[in-house]
């Protein structure tokens, strides 16, 4: 797997118009909507800006249907920046798909006068949210849980030979067929609405972080981001809850004497059935069932793809953690997170930096900045759980029900084949399915889509064989769009590193962000998806694209973590600090340059990963 066809010269990455289609992937363009593709008509703009591959949220070749998540945030992020809060220098983030990968570029506000006019609106509107943050966040939670409730209630009716009697007896005036189409629209709207909420407060939160970080770095040029993050973070982050619940269940298993049964092996689902046979087992299962919603709605990935499954879909991951916790409790270990220590440290750090400031004005500024950052922190820390984990777990399962209808109609062989259709195509297919159910005529659909799915399966495989260029187009003097910098960690320096790495190639050193301090040497284990986590052996160094909260348990096993994507606030960095492991995050290309079995050194103080010895050359 090389990307040698893609040339990097001087201070620009290849033009999107120069990148060849990988062999065997011809025709990939038809899988995606026309508006997400580079085009000759729009070439002047598209060739003038730098596009980044969004490896943070969408690192994989896109299944046609799965573009829906980034289409949601394209809309939501953009409208809040551009039209609602009037972030003075920033519009939204534009998207394109090339060879199946998502590329993004921030759209700056270039009209100086308009930028100036936006300041007043921003001050007024963002100011309103900051002043009312806690109340609005409470309101937000109500909106979000309401939305989740609506989603659960969506009915995706099957199409029997004869519709229900009640269509007549209750004079419904609508049929199952109509309600199926309505349900599809409603389910898509539900996702778009979730993302409307997602960005309602997010960028304002990040702006508050940015304000604090900027001030702190001016006051203390040597301050570590990690230290700053610790001064802001709360101790009760929702992300820790699922793991905390497992610890409680482990404790309960020991108390009820069912621990050995849980550890006996076999499929967790089978174990659960076996447990139900005894009274004590039943009690434990009930306790588990009680916490599943929402705490097992915890994605093994970022929640952006249909194949990011959650604990509730596959109990293997929580089960591995659960049995590990039972072992540790038996050895007499305490599993409680050091909540009080975290808060004590946060207060001590804050007080010490405050004391070191030179003037009283600085102390006032510091108090305001840190106060605002802490106010927004709960939203920043918790919104992901509500949207990408809890909501999306349910959403992906709900949308699969439409795949079931297509399978029942003979259109597809398997429900997940539906993800080879994009959202517009799926809507058309469902219409046609219902229409032919109505007319009784044979449809072209089953022939057309079975063949097309087979062909797209081949295309996706061919696209996957070619890793994406990290970026496309000219490199600007400076990258100053605030959200690209904050949310994606893409900076002038980072892009130059990519350029350098692409030009140098084959170097044995990767540079990223020092995410968690310490140095460790060990054997690398490259993990590209949560389903591979079982391969990780004790003490290995995890090399992954990005980690997700549900990966938590694997951190008890590894010696260090290295991720392609992420910054100091990323999951991998936060959890590594919690576990006291070195971590280097945001290397850009770790999973592509390191191979399982390589001996590597991870320096979490400097952010450098060195490949000491290649696998098989020992």
């Amino acid at each position, binding site marked *: 797997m090389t990307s040698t066809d893609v040339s990097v010269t001087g201070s620009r990455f290849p033009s999107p118009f120069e990148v060849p289609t990988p062999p065997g992937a011809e025709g990939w363009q038809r899988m995606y909507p026309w508006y997400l593709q580079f085009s000759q008509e729009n070439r002047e703009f598209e060739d003038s800006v730098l596009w980044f591959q969004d490896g943070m949220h969408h690192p994989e070749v896109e299944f046609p249907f799965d573009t829906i998540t980034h289409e949601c945030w394209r809309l939501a992020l953009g409208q809040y920046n551009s039209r609602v809060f009037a*972030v*003075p*220098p*920033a519009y939204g983030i534009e998207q394109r798909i090339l060879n199946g990968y998502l590329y993004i570029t921030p759209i700056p506000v270039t009209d100086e006068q308009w930028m100036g006019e936006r*300041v007043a609106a*921003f*001050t007024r509107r*963002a*100011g309103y949210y*900051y002043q009312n943050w806690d109340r609005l966040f409470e309101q937000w939670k109500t909106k979000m849980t309401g939305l989740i409730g609506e989603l659960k209630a969506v009915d995706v009716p099957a199409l029997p030979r004869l519709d229900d009697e009640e269509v007549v007896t209750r004079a419904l005036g609508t049929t199952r067929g109509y309600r199926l189409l309505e349900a599809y629209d409603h389910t898509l709207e539900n996702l778009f609405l979730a993302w409307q909420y997602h960005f309602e407060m997010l960028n304002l939160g990040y*702006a*508050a*972080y*940015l*304000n604090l*970080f*900027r*001030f702190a770095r*001016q006051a*203390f*040029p*040597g*301050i*570590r*981001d990690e*230290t700053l993050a610790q001064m802001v973070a709360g101790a009760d982050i929702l992300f820790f809850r699922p793991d905390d619940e497992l610890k409680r269940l482990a404790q309960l298993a020991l108390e009820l004497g069912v621990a050995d049964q849980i550890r006996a092996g076999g499929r967790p689902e089978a174990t659960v059935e076996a447990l139900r046979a005894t009274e004590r087992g039943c009690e434990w299962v009930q306790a588990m069932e009680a916490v599943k919603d929402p705490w097992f709605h915890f994605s093994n990935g970022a929640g952006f793809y249909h194949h990011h499954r959650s604990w509730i879909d596959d109990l293997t991951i929580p089960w591995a953690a659960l049995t590990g916790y039972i072992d540790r409790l038996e050895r007499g270990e305490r599993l409680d997170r050091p909540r009080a220590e975290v808060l004590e440290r946060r207060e001590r*750090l804050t007080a*010490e*930096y405050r*004391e*070191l*400031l*030179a*003037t009283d*004005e*600085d102390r006032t*500024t510091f108090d*305001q*900045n840190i106060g*605002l950052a802490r106010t927004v922190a709960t939203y920043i820390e918790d919104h992901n759980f509500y949207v990408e984990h809890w909501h999306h777990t349910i959403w992906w399962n709900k949308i699969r029900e439409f795949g079931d209808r297509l399978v029942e109609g003979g259109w597809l062989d398997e429900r997940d084949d539906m993800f080879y259709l994009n959202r517009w195509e799926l809507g058309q297919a469902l219409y046609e399915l219902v229409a032919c159910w109505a007319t009784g005529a044979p449809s072209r659909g089953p022939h057309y889509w079975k063949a097309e799915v087979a062909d797209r399966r081949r295309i996706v495989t061919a696209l996957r064989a070619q890793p994406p260029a990290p970026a496309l187009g000219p490199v600007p003097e400076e990258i*100053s769009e*605030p959200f690209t*910098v*904050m949310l994606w*960690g893409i*900076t002038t*320096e*980072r892009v130059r590193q990519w350029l350098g790495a692409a030009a140098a190639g084959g170097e044995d050193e990767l*540079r990223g*962000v*020092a995410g968690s*301090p310490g140095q460790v040497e060990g054997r690398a284990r490259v993990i590209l998806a949560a389903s591979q986590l079982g391969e990780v052996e004790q003490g290995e160094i995890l090399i992954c694209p990005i980690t997700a909260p549900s990966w938590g348990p694997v951190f008890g096993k590894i010696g260090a973590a290295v991720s392609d994507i*992420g*910054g*100091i*606030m990323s999951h991998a960095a936060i959890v590594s600090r919690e576990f006291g492991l070195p971590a280097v*995050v945001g290397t850009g290309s770790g999973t592509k340059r390191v191979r399982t079995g390589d001996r590597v050194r991870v320096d979490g*103080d*400097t*952010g450098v990963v060195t490949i000491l010895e290649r696998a098989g050359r020992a």
Partner: protein
Amino acid sequence: MPAAAHPHVIGLDACDHPVGGSVGGKALGLGFLLRQGLRVPPGFVVTTEAYRECLARSGLATRISRELDAAGSLRARQRASARIRALFESEPPAPDVLDEVRAAYHALGGPDAPVAVRSSATTEDTAEASFAGQLDSYLWVQGADEVARHVVRCWGSLFTPQAISYRAHLGIAPHGLAMAVVVQRMVPAEAAGVMLTIDPVTGDRSQIVIEAAFGLGVAVVDGEVTPDRFCVDKVTGELRSATIARKHLAHHFDPDAGGVGATAVPAHLQAQPCLTQTEVGRIALLGKQVERAMGGRAQDIEWAVAPAGGDGEREVLLLQTRPETVWSRRTPAPIAPPGLPLMGRLVEALHQPVNLDDRGPSTLGS
């Protein structure tokens, strides 16, 4: 015997503000450290009272004034300096002063205890700071008579040509001058150096910079070797960077020469760190404690690491602390433009986003 209010000799642990004027800045600092319970080599101060009595006793003051009055040109100052310093050497202090110095010296560790004899200036702030380097210090002085002789030599160092010129430049009248001298047990340092509780390059108060070399601290202070450089985060205690230099020489007591001399560091040790990471941490923590004790003013500290007991244990001792002068003298300006409200600062931040992630290790120093 001298009146209790005007002693000639004061133990370092008794050096506090009431006697501040008669013991000088260095002794005050050391006394302060001792009272904080910090490890400082024991010692005493020969006060300014002893100096003044000596000047008054033999008419030295008048003779010095006469020499200085005649010293207008640089040439003349050099000649005056030599003559004044000779005057000091030829006029020993009064016998009771000498007796007190001897007694205090014996109490430190017997008739042959090696000590450092160092000037402790009493002139005011800025002058004091800039003077410090110009006043004499003598290492590894042994024997009561030798100690007394070096005390007098320190007094004479008030009248080096540079000091004379400097005072003339600042318009400081010579007749108010006085000097205290610190006599302190010599530390057989295996490593020593300086520490600033501020990043001298960026002025970052959250960072501590330690420079260290093998042997006595003089190699670092006088810039004879490129020292190892350690940067420690003052707040978190993390070691942020360690730059290990090739340290070709070290100062130790040389029994053959009867004093301190520079010797070559064995080749295989030159590029080794002269401190363990634990020691770096301990030194930095001491720096933080000292700064706190000094009312939060950034400090410029000399320290040494010496054997403590048997089996290779080492301890850190503090030899001196004084306020950092470069950054401390600046009038700090608030970071945010005065009067800019929180929302205004947010707008500014959005225009100049800092990358939240890209910072590698600290780039303290140069």
